[in-house]
């Protein structure tokens, strides 16, 4: 057999393995990325969607955050303007997690109607981009 042919066979083997790893990787670790109302539609249509790991992109409802530092539990409500879910998160929240901030939550909606988050990422609009305040003293926090 010519070396070129052998290389092609070897290459195809590598590609097939990687293709397999990628396909199973996506199947096993891929999660739906939904808005609160999409999540609501899904559970309404299919009750088995409770307790499935998903990512939810939402905004924190102003004033809804309560923290229990001793047990490191944070409760708040997350909304997209149409649907709102209560959220429980145990662990350390990032510094950028404040009222009205956009968050990406990873976790599951349980049948009690509470979203149990295992990871919490805060996406802050002002993280690297800032809007100057009208007066120098007013600190905008969005």
């Amino acid at each position, binding site marked *: 057999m010519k070396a*070129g042919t052998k290389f092609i066979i070897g290459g195809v083997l590598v590609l097939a393995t990687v293709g397999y790893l990628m396909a199973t*990787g996506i199947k096993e*670790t891929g999660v739906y990325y939904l808005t609160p109302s999409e999540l609501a539609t899904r559970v309404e249509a299919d009750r088995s969607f409770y307790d499935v790991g998903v990512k939810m992109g939402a905004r924190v409802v102003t004033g809804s955050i309560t923290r229990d*530092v001793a047990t490191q539990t944070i409760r708040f409500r997350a909304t997209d303007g149409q649907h709102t879910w209560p959220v429980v998160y145990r662990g350390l929240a990032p510094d950028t997690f404040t009222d009205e901030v956009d968050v990406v939550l990873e976790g599951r909606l349980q049948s009690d109607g509470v979203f149990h988050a295992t990871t919490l990422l805060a996406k802050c609009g002002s993280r690297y981009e800032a809007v100057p305040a009208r007066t120098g003293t007013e600190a905008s926090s969005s």
Partner: protein
Amino acid sequence: MTDIGNIALWIALLIGLWGSAVAFAAGRSRRADLALSAERSMFAVWGLLALASAALMKALLAHDFSIEYVAAYTSRNLPVFYTWSAFYAGQKGSLLFWAIVLATFSAAAVLMNRGRYRELMPYVTAVLLVIITFFVAVMVFASNPFEKLGFLPQDGRGLNPQLQNPGMVIHPPMLYLGYISIAVPFAFAVAALVSGKLDTGWLQAIRRWTIMSWLFLSVGVVLGMWWAYVELGWGGYWAWDPVENASLMPWLTMTAFLHSVMIQEKRGMLKKWNLGLIIGSFLLSIFGTFITRSGVISSVHSFAQSNVGWFFLGFLVLAGVASFALLAYRWPVLAAEARLESMVSREAAFLFNNLIFLVITFSVFWGTLFPVLSEAVRGTKVTVGPPFFNQVNIPLGLLLLFLTGVGPLIAWRQASTANLRRQFLWPVAGMLVTGALLAVLRMSDVWAIAAFALAVFVTVTVAQEFVRGTLARHRQYGEGWLLAVVRLVGRNRRRYGGYVVHLGMVMLFVGFAGMAFKSDTEVTLKPGQTTEVRSPYGHVYRFTHQGISQYEQLNRFVSAASLDVYRDGKYIGVMKSEKRQHMDSMGQPTFEPSTEVAIRSDVREDLYIIFAGSVQGTEEAVYRITINPLVWWVWYGGMVLALGGLISMWPTGRAPTPVKRRADQAGYVARVEA
């Protein structure tokens, strides 16, 4: 100042347009006067962009808050050191930074190759001017750094505290330098395709440029990891975030190119492939810019969403279509001059190396874009995270590490059994002994065992090369050991620099493998209370909470929590983690509070402590204590990598030797066989 900046940008746009057109015309007609005009346009554009940059710099330093950009990113109490970094902290300033750096590289490339490559240079100038003009156009029409605010705020908003870190002052420019400098090799590749001068001339011209781009990208990526580690406070340095991936992809394709180009130089193979890699690297660097600026893919560190992204997408599509169409047009003349003769040869090792680099790039690309693709195809957004990337890339990475050891030592064309025995006996022995030893010691992670064993394999191959080369010089010229090593490296910079890079890579892999043994503990402690954590090496660390102190410092208010740390009962020091609330010049809080991590690093493991907050304002503190084994190896591996890159690209002082098939320089092995 704003007017000067604005006018400079507009004139640069016009001259850029003229220069691009005239440069293409010069390439076609071979008229020297047109070529000269194109060259001068390049220098003029550089001068104008330098003027605009100086104007922005002056506005930043003078706190001219009537300019929107200045007001958005600086404040009166921002340290001068960081005022400088505000130049590229935001979208608009970073575009100007891109443009001035690209113009500098371009002008340098034109200046250095004056009188050489006469058929290529007009096209090179044209391509570079088109890219620069694109950036200037984006600034002028969509994202002008000199835009006025319309009112004069008393103070600016200040720089995000997370960007107030020394790593952040050098990381973005390094990465930008890497991204941007790829434009020069790309311009040469396109020029070669357009002009049809597809001999090795263009490769020779860009050889050092490609190593330089690669070096900047490497340093930029590692510094980014370091910044994420010390500043973001989540305990790791790589999260497979889209923006991180965007910086990794061109690095992967450039690394692939640096290897495959050797095959073209020595054997005249892979011509199409190499052109494709350069084009691909450039497109990926633009793609990275597109991802960070468009908001198409959500990432923790993207710029705010803006329409600037769409300019980049348009440019990306145009550049991609045009350059691949050119490649297709020249396809017939790019036939290989030799064929692969054996699977046990350096050519085959390099081909596999390239295949794996490309496959990794593809998997990263796929994983990064999967949310967008799945939404487009199936209507629901599905995201993949670190588990996906790790599952695919750990095996591929280890395969690559294996080839890192094989590639440089195996013979060209076809390796004999004698050659294999001579080169690989000790490395394989070292690998097997290490693997067996770690298995006996019950290391729990199979991938980590493989990584450490392969690390030893590669290290022994490199050590063997250094020892044999030094011995040969010592015998042949009677040089002392030290002199022999220095001359050995100095006379074969590309080869031994490459070995040093490989050692740096090995160190990085050792660091990555260490993360398999990371441990996390969260505790709440009252002052005087103690907690114990077991490290992966079996040490017991004891932490005693000292209390929380509060004070003002520079432009911030600090709450600092301290822990006394004991290792196996022996006191080793205090570790202090802070929560910082930044203030504006009126003493009002700005931005969200940020965390300053306490890190104690040594060769074996890092103690990484985050003060997460106090319980209802008392001195009772919540901590996250992370033990990260072998992180030190990542940072020092990065330095070794950079050192190797520098050795490889260091000028020899001689005129560049023409690139021919040089059997005598094809390595130690080939010399034995030739």
